[in-house]
């Protein structure tokens, strides 16, 4: 039932965006001007290709996000289980240990200056 509702919602959302695109490609003006089809670089002739190497920092940000995100997602079930647990001291101790390890990692990241963008 829930899944059926979701699927209906999803399909309607997809159809909506497809219909919007379809309308404009049906109604829109069509004139093929070669200059318009070119890469836009503020009117200057484009130099080189767009697939080149970009800064490693983007990648580093993504991978660090992944690692910290996993830690935070681990905390979600913890936050839900805390209230129903009978042994709060035990849960708190686990949380503190978890956070200390996470903070060690965080401090290491900040100290290494790996995420500093300016040189």
């Amino acid at each position, binding site marked *: 039932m*829930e*899944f059926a509702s*979701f*699927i209906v919602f999803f399909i309607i959302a997809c159809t909506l965006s497809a219909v919007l695109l379809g309308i404009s490609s049906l109604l829109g003006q069509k004139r093929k001007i070669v200059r318009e089809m070119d890469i836009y670089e503020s009117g200057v002739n484009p130099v080189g290709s767009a*697939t*080149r*190497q*970009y800064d*490693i920092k*983007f*990648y*580093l940000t*993504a*991978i*660090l*996000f*992944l*690692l910290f*995100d*996993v*830690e935070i*997602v*681990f905390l*979600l*079930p*913890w936050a*839900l*289980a805390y209230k*129903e*647990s009978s042994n709060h001291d*035990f*849960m708190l101790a*686990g949380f503190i*240990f*978890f956070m200390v*390890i*996470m903070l*060690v*990692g965080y401090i*290491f*990241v900040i100290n*290494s*200056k*790996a995420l500093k963008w300016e040189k």
Partner: protein
Amino acid sequence: MAADIFLTILTVVFALMVVFSKKTVVSAFALLMTLLSLAMIFFQLGTVFLSAVQVLINAGAIAILFVFVMMLINLEQFPNNREKSKVKLVISTFTMLVVLGVFALVINNNIETLSVVNLTDNSMKALFDKLFNAYFLPFEMATVLLLAAIVACIVITTHEKHENEEELQILKTEEKL
């Protein structure tokens, strides 16, 4: 039931696309679609939590990493390496054997025992209970593992920079000389 079968076929088709697509970026997006249809299967089974976590971690973070790599290292500049090599042959044979072995296990054993019974969001609560009682130590160890991963990725990415700096230093001193 129809939804089950459809989602399963979708997942398998996308998974095959990951392997067989010749364009790396298409592979990466096929991987994303595989993960998303897996999340749909979880949802269809009734665990919104698992499907949300699947989307958050696997689709939202890991697949982004893959796409980033594809984009950042400009794979188009490398010629497509499709030569046959012995290493490839050995690895693919081994993988096929493992997959066939798993299939054989599934078919030989009673399939009922492998299917997850009553997987709902309510049974998630039971899962949390287990996670924070019986499996508390592995849960804590997970964070240690993540710490190791953080340290490793920082060391790997910043290591080269230091070398460059040293090289620069050497160059500068040479210039002075």
